[in-house]
C-alpha cells in the first residue's frame, strides 16, 4: 500500500446510481478503515483538530480504530459531536480537518471524514447509544429549529442536566438534513433519524409543527411557559430568485421547493402523495452544493440535466467531490453562461431560456474574477424545467415577532460569534440564522458554543 494515497472508497457505479436514490458512497469495511487509520501519524500537536469546528479528538478516535476498538472510538467522537454519521458524510472535510492534516503536505490527507463515518455507522449498527445524563436540574430551555445547530445545542444542554424542548416548524426534525440534502448523499431513515433519536435519548423533547412566531412567540415561551433561555437555530431557508422575466412560469422551481418535494415529502417514491415535475430537459441555475444536489436529484427522476453557471469551473462554489459526482452521472455544464429570460409557451409553461456567454474580467473585492457579458453572445437553451439555486437568506419571521431581537440588513440575527449572545437577554442564536447559508459543522459549532454560554448565563442567574 502506498502511504501517500488514501485507501480508495467504494461507490455505486454511476450508470446504476442515476437510476436509484440509494447512497452513492458505500463506506469502508473494517480492514479498509484500519488501513486508512494507520496512515495517521498521531501528531503530538494535531493540526486537524484545529480544522474541526467542534474540535473532535481526531488522533484519539483514529488510534482506537487502529486498535480495532470501534466502540471506544465512538465514545471519543461522541464526546464532541452528536451527529458523526452525518458529518462524516457531508462535512466539507477538504476545507476543514483534512485541509490541514499533516499527511496532506506530501500526498493525500487522512480520510478523517470517512473514518468518522465508519465509526458512527458501526456504532449504530451495533446499537451503541449515548447515555442519558443522570443528573437533571429541571431548568427549562427552548431550542427553536431542529437543524444541526439546534440539535447540537439541545444535546449539549441536556447533557448538562437541563430540561430541553426543541420546537420545529416542519413535521420532521432535522432541518436541511431532512428537507435539503438528498437521500443519495445522506440517507434519512438509516442515518439521520437514528442520530436524532440519539439526541432524544439524552432526554431532549422535540415538538414538531410549531412555528415560533406564529404558533407561539419567544416572549410567550419565556413569560408563560417558563423557559429560562432560548436558542434560535432557524437556519437560512428563504430562497432567492433572479428577478428575470418568465421566472414565475410553470416549471420554474426554487431548489428548496424541488428538494423539499423529493426529500422531505418523498416525491421520488410513488407511494407518497406529493407530486414532483421531472421534466425532460431541465436546467439548474447556480453552481453551489445545493445546485449539484438539485441537478443530481432531477437526473435520478429522469431528466436530462444541465448546470448553468456564470463563472468558470474553477469558481464553482460546490465541493469538488460533488462536481465530480455530477459529471460522472452525466450532468452537462454550461459554464460562463448567464440566464436573461425564461421563455414561456402559450399555456404558461417553460419552453426555453435565453442566455448570454460571459467572460471573466477583473477581480472584485473578494478576489474572484468578475464575470462580464460578452456582447452579441445571446443564445437559447431549449428546456421545459428550470431550477433556481441562487442561495438563501434567513426567514424574517423570528426577528419580526421577537421584541428586542436585532437583525442586520441581510435578515441575519445579530449574535456574538463566540457565544451566540443576541441583543435580547436570555436569547442565543447560531448557525445559518446568524451567518447566512454555511455548513453543517459550522452550525454545530455555533450550537455548541451557544450551549456553553447559555449554561453560564443560567448558572449566573441562579446565584
Amino acid at each position, binding site marked *: 500500500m502506498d502511504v501517500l494515497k488514501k485507501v480508495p472508497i467504494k461507490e455505486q457505479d454511476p450508470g446504476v446510481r442515476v437510476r436509484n436514490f440509494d447512497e452513492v458512497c458505500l463506506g469502508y469495511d473494517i480492514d479498509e478503515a484500519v488501513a486508512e487509520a494507520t496512515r495517521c501519524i498521531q501528531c503530538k500537536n494535531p493540526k486537524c483538530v484545529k480544522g474541526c469546528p467542534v474540535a473532535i479528538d481526531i488522533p484519539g478516535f483514529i488510534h482506537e480504530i487502529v486498535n480495532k476498538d470501534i466502540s471506544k472510538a465512538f465514545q471519543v467522537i461522541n464526546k464532541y459531536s452528536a451527529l458523526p454519521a452525518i458529518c462524516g458524510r457531508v462535512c466539507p472535510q477538504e476545507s476543514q480537518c483534512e485541509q490541514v492534516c499533516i499527511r496532506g503536505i506530501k500526498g493525500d490527507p487522512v480520510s478523517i471524514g470517512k473514518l468518522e463515518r465508519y465509526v458512527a455507522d458501526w456504532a449504530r449498527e451495533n446499537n451503541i447509544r449515548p447515555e442519558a445524563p443522570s443528573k437533571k436540574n429541571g431548568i427549562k430551555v427552548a431550542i427553536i429549529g431542529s437543524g444541526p445547530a439546534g440539535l447540537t445545542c439541545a444535546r449539549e444542554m441536556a447533557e448538562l442536566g437541563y430540561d430541553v424542548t426543541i420546537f420545529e416548524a416542519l413535521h420532521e426534525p432535522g432541518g436541511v438534513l431532512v428537507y435539503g440534502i438528498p437521500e443519495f448523499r445522506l440517507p434519512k431513515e438509516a442515518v439521520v433519524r437514528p442520530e436524532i433519536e440519539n439526541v432524544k435519548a439524552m432526554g431532549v423533547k422535540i415538538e414538531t409543527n410549531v412555528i415560533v412566531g406564529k404558533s407561539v412567540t419567544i416572549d410567550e415561551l419565556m413569560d408563560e411557559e417558563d423557559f429560562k433561555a432560548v436558542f434560535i437555530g432557524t437556519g437560512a431557508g428563504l430562497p432567492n430568485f433572479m428577478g428575470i422575466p418568465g421566472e414565475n412560469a410553470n416549471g420554474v422551481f426554487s431548489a428548496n421547493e424541488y428538494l423539499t418535494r423529493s426529500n422531505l415529502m418523498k416525491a421520488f417514491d410513488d407511494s407518497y402523495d406529493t407530486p414532483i415535475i421531472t421534466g425532460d430537459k431541465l436546467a439548474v441555475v447556480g453552481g453551489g452544493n445545493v445546485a449539484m444536489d438539485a441537478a443530481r436529484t432531477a437526473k435520478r427522476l429522469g431528466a436530462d440535466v444541465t448546470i448553468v453557471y456564470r463563472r468558470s469551473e474553477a469558481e464553482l462554489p460546490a465541493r469538488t467531490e460533488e462536481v465530480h459526482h455530477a459529471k460522472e452521472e452525466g450532468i452537462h455544464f454550461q459554464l460562463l453562461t448567464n440566464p436573461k429570460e425564461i421563455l414561456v409557451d402559450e399555456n404558461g409553461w417553460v419552453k426555453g431560456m435565453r442566455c448570454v456567454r460571459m467572460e471573466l474580467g477583473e477581480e472584485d473585492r473578494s478576489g474572484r474574477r468578475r464575470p462580464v457579458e460578452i456582447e452579441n453572445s445571446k443564445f437559447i437553451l431549449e428546456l421545459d424545467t428550470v431550477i433556481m439555486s441562487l442561495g438563501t437568506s434567513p*426567514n424574517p419571521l423570528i426577528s419580526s415577532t421577537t421584541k428586542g431581537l436585532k437583525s442586520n440588513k441581510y435578515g441575519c440575527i445579530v449574535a456574538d460569534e463566540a457565544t451566540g449572545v443576541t441583543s435580547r437577554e436570555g436569547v442565543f442564536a447560531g448557525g445559518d440564522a446568524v451567518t447566512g447559508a454555511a455548513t453543517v459543522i459550522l452550525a454545530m459549532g455555533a450550537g455548541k458554543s451557544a450551549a456553553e454560554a447559555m449554561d453560564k448565563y443560567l448558572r449566573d442567574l441562579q446565584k
Partner: protein
Amino acid sequence: MTDNHIHTITKKVKLADSIYLMDVKAPRVAAHCYPGQFIILIADEKGERIPLTICDYDREEGTVTIVFQALGGSTKLLAEYEVGEAFRDFTGPLGQRSELVNMASEELSKMKILFVAGGVGTAPVYPQMKWMKENGYDADCIIGARNKELIILEDQMKEYAKNVFITTDDGSYGMKGNVNEAIKHLINEKKQHYDLIVAIGPMIMMKYVCILTKELGIRTIVSMNPIMVDGTGMCGACRLTIGDEIKFACVDGPEFDGHLVNFDEAMKRLSMYKTKEGKQKLREREGDTHHHKGCECHNE
C-alpha cells in the same frame, strides 16, 4: 406526529356534495389564530401538506374548524376521516391575519364592507364575518354558488351578517346569476354603497370580481390559494406577482389587494399538478360561474 398533541377530529359534518366541515384538536393553533390565517395538515405518513383556511376556532376547547372540498386525491382522502380519528400533522396558524383584524376601530366603524363568498370560499369568509359582528361592526355578504346544493354555511352567515344575498348560477336558490351580477344588483338597483369588498372564492371568481370593482372604484381584498409546500416561506412555490413585486402568499398573504394581483399567472400556476379528476371537478365548479349574460337577478 408531534410529541405533545394528537390532532383528533372532534366533529365532522357534510355541508354539501363533497364539502366537509371538521373540528380538529390543535391547541397551539387555536390559541393563536385569527381570521384570515390558515393551517397545513398532513393526513397520514405518506400524505401531502394540504393548506386549508381556518374557518373557526374555539380557544377554550383548543379546536380549529376547517372546511374543504374533496376534489383530488389528497382532499378525497381527508373526507374519509371520521370523528375520533386523528391527522398525522396539523400546523399553524400560517399567513397574516386578515387586514380587517389589524385595522383601527374608528376606521372600521366608518366603513361599509361587502363580503363576497364563492362556493367553498364561504368558509374563509365566515370567520371574518363573525369577527366583524363580535367586534360590533355590520357588514353585508353575497354567497354565490353553482346551485342550491352548493350553498354552504348559510345559517351561520345569517347569524353574523347584516344582510345575506344568495345567488346561484342556475337560479335554483336566491338570485339567478353569478356574484358579479349580484354586486351590480346591490349597487345599481339597491343603491348600496360599499367602501371595501372582501372577495374569497375560486381564483377565476376573484379575478372577475376585481375587474368589476376596479371599474366601480371599490378597493377589494382577495385571499389567494396558490400551491404551497411548507407554508413558512422556505420553498417559494406560492409566489405571486402583486403589482410589480413578487410575494410569497404563505408569509406575505394569503390576503392581497385584489387590484394588484396577476390572476392569470396565478391561475396557470395553480394548475401545475392538477389531477384529471381534480380538473374535471374544478371545471364543474368554476366553469360556468362567469358567463357574462345580462343581469337576471331575482330578489330574495
